[in-house]
Structure formats: C-alpha cells, structure tokens
C-alpha cells in the first residue's frame, strides 16, 4: 500500500504520523492542565464568595440581626468548599470545579439575604437609638424639673422652720 504512494503521499503520511504521536502525548497533558487551572480558578472564586458572604453575615450580626439560619447555611457552603479543595488535592479537578460552582451560588444567596437582614436590623437599631435618646432627654429633663421643684419647696420649708426657731441666749454667769 505504502509502496503505491507517491512522494507527496509518503510525506503526508509521515507528517500525519508525527503529528499523531506529538498530539497523542501532548494533548491529554494540555487538557489536564487546563482542567486543573479551571478548577483552581473556580475554587478561588468560591473561596472569595464564601468569605464575602461571611463578612456580610458579620455586619448583619453586628447590627443586631438574628443570623443563626444564615450561619448554618453558610457553614454548609464552607464545608463544601473544604470538600472541593480536598478533591482538588486528590487531582479530581472535574468534581472540584462542579462543587465550587455550586458553592458560589449558595454563598451569593446567603450574602444577599445577609445584606437585606443587616440593612433592616441597622435601620431598626437606628430608630431604637433615636427613640431611646429622645425618651432619655425627656425623662432626665422631667426628673430634674421635679427635683428642682422639690428642692425649692424643701428650701422654703427649711428656712421657715429656721426662722421660727427662737434664738437661745446663753449667759455665762461669772463666778
């Protein structure tokens, strides 16, 4: 069969064979590196998403919101993130990347809810502070006014009582 080929045919066959050998060895490695890089990037994005969601949860918690459910849900995402990282360490890049993509979605949902909850708790806290501030000022003013009236009455009564007292003359008889 080969003997029947011309010069061009043989050259093409040799080039084709060489390309097959080169690509046969090279392509799986290139694909593998690409899959690994993709998985690495996906995990990094997932890592940032979980961290960002945690920061949003912390802000909401500081504002006084009840974040129990959010922490539970984010904890699940964090567990999955560790699982994805561990799969990556065992060279299971496809599973790791798939898990990472799922984590990003979960973490974003938590972050959105934490932001809403945080904003609500923050405004609630602000109005509570305003109310406390106003009631404190009113309460303290009323109390001081009451004390002033009491003091005036007491002072008047005290002075009247003092004036009613007869002076006592004490004489010392010289002996």
């Amino acid at each position, binding site marked *: 069969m080969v003997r029947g080929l011309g010069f061009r045919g043989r050259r093409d066959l040799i080039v084709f064979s060489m390309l097959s050998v080169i690509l046969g060895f090279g392509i799986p490695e290139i694909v593998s590196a690409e899959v690994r890089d993709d998985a690495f990037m996906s995990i990094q994005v997932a890592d940032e998403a*979980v*961290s960002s969601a*945690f*920061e949003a*949860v*912390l802000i909401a*918690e*500081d504002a006084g919101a009840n*974040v*129990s459910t959010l*922490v539970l849900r*984010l*904890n699940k995402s*964090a*567990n999955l*993130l*560790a699982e994805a*990282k*561990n*799969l990556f*360490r*065992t060279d299971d890049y496809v599973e790791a990347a798939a898990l990472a993509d799922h984590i990003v979605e979960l973490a974003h949902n938590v972050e959105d809810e934490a932001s809403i909850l945080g904003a609500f708790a923050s405004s609630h806290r602000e109005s509570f*502070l305003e109310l*406390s*501030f106003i009631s*404190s000022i009113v*309460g*303290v003013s009323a*109390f*001081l006014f009451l*004390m002033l009236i*009491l*003091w005036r009455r*007491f*002072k008047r009564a*005290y*002075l009247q009582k003092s004036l009613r007292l007869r002076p006592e003359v004490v004489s010392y008889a010289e002996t």
Partner: protein
Amino acid sequence: MLKLRDFESLFLLVSLAGSLLIASPILSSVFASRTGEKFSELYVLGTNGMDPVYPFDVKGNDTYSIILGIGNHMGSSSYYALYVKLRNQRESLPNSTANMPSNLPALYEYRVLLHDGEVWQAPLDFSFGGPHYSSNSCALTSLTIDSLTFHVDKEGFWDSEGKGFFFQLFFELWIYSPESKVFRFHDRYVGIWLNMTA
C-alpha cells in the same frame, strides 16, 4: 443637724444618680463593650469522646479514628480553617512564640463557621499507604483521610531512643480576618504522635 448646704449637696447627688439611671439605656448602647477574654479552643479526642487513648502504634492500610473539636469564644461568629499536616521528627512544627504556622503543605482541610459559644466536633478516619522500610528509614506513600487518598511521599527515620519510626499528624487552626480579608494562623495547633510499625 444637717445644714442647708448639706441638703443641697444631697439633692444634687440624688439628681445626678437619678439622671444617670434614667439615661442608662441610651448610655449602655453608646458605651457598650464586649468584656471577657476572646479565644478559640482546638482539641483532639480519642474516639470514645473523653477517652484520652489515641492511636499510637499504627500499621499501613489499617484505619484509625480520632475526633477533632473547635470552640468559638471570640465574641462573634467566626470562620475557621483547620489544616491537617503530617511531619517526621526532623520537620518543623508551628512556632507559637512567633505566631508562625508550619511551612509544610496542608494535606486536608476543614472549613467551619461557628456562632459565639458554639462548639464543632468531627470524626477523622485516617490510614497510611506504604509503608516501605529500609535499614533506618520508613517511607509513607499516601495518607487516606475520610475516604480521600493524598500522595504524601514522607520519609521517617529510625529513632534509637524511642525505638520507632515516628510521624506526627497535626492540626493547625486558622481564622478568617475580615480586616485583612485572608485567613491567618490562629496560633493554635494540636497533634498526635504515631509510631509506624510493620
């Protein structure tokens, strides 16, 4: 008998105390401070909970179990990373004085989010692949944790005093810092010594 000036001071004192009492809700919210020491717990237990017996003499391909625990007392929710590392006697441990982690790579990790006051515990099953013995060394090829197998390529050397090939499986606790937006070593680690036997 008390003089008018004494009564005046008494009234002023009562007025001040009463004003502070009435304004206490707003004052407490303005000057609120979290008191108490902030810290995290990290511990390792035997599989019977409080049983202090940990695996020590271990063989290749046999599975052993321990329990890991983290407690959050940081005053707010915290995000932890717990790294599992393996070392031989010649490799370094974390430096508590300098607050530096070990430079060995993490083989496995946990990520945990905890409320203030919450405690997390998880079982850890592990087994070693290999081991291959030569005259005075023992080489481990893999470490399997919770059904995932990691390539380790770790060599332990014969300890003539302890009469064994000793490896240490240790756990470093890291905590996420929202200020710097990275995990930093939390200056806590625990470990168990393992004697690799044939």
